[in-house]
């Protein structure tokens, strides 16, 4: 299997997983965004919410990194610039969710 096919399959699987997680998160966000500090903390410290939020951000960054790298492929001609852009993209796609999950586990 060539890399492009693997990438496409990963994109489709992560996209399918992302749909129910986005649905769950957007309804909860509408519910908590204007709540007091305590209620927001309760949401992020609840085991189920914390687990689903962690899966949601990991999957969202994974999906976005694959999608945005496709945009780079389509619109960036220079290989050096494209490689740097992809590297920054993949590093941030790992770093941001990992840092967030560690920080919310301290709540």
């Amino acid at each position, binding site marked *: 299997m060539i890399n492009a096919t693997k990438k496409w399959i990963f994109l*489709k699987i992560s*996209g*399918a997983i*992302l*749909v129910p997680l*986005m*649905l769950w*998160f*957007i*309804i*909860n*966000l*509408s*519910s908590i*965004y*204007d709540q*007091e*500090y*305590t209620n*927001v*903390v309760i949401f*992020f410290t609840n085991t189920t919410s914390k687990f689903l*939020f962690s899966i949601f*951000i990991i999957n*969202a*960054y994974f999906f*976005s990194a694959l*999608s*945005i790298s496709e*945009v780079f492929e*389509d*619109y*960036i*001609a*220079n*290989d*050096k610039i*494209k490689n740097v852009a992809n590297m920054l993209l993949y590093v941030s796609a790992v770093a*941001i*969710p990992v*840092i*967030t999950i560690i*920080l*919310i586990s*301290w*709540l």
Partner: protein
Amino acid sequence: MQNKSPLSPHIQIYKWHISSLVSISNRITGIINIIVITLICLWASLLLLGESRYETINLLLDSSIGKFLILGITWSFSFQILSEIRHLIMDLGYGFELKTTKITGLIVIFGSIILTVIFYLIGKNFF
């Protein structure tokens, strides 16, 4: 080194269709969503600073600007949800007829607006 593979032509040379509008909107909302998710990660992390510092963020989110932002985010997420379902159905080999692509494109556009209202009202316990 310059890559010799062809790049996508500039979008301005195409005549606009429902499918192209949905496709470009899918990419735009995808980028908006990941920026929003980054800000949400920051928001969740800022909870560590404690209740008194959270007051400033709460003031912004509880204002009209905050409500407008949340409605915008809800629309952007709703658009991605419907667009992703449309793509998954097309990946299974359905919905390639010209008429069907127009109908499903319109469902994504108008459905995202309807879903925005529904999701927001569910979140606010209106049902």
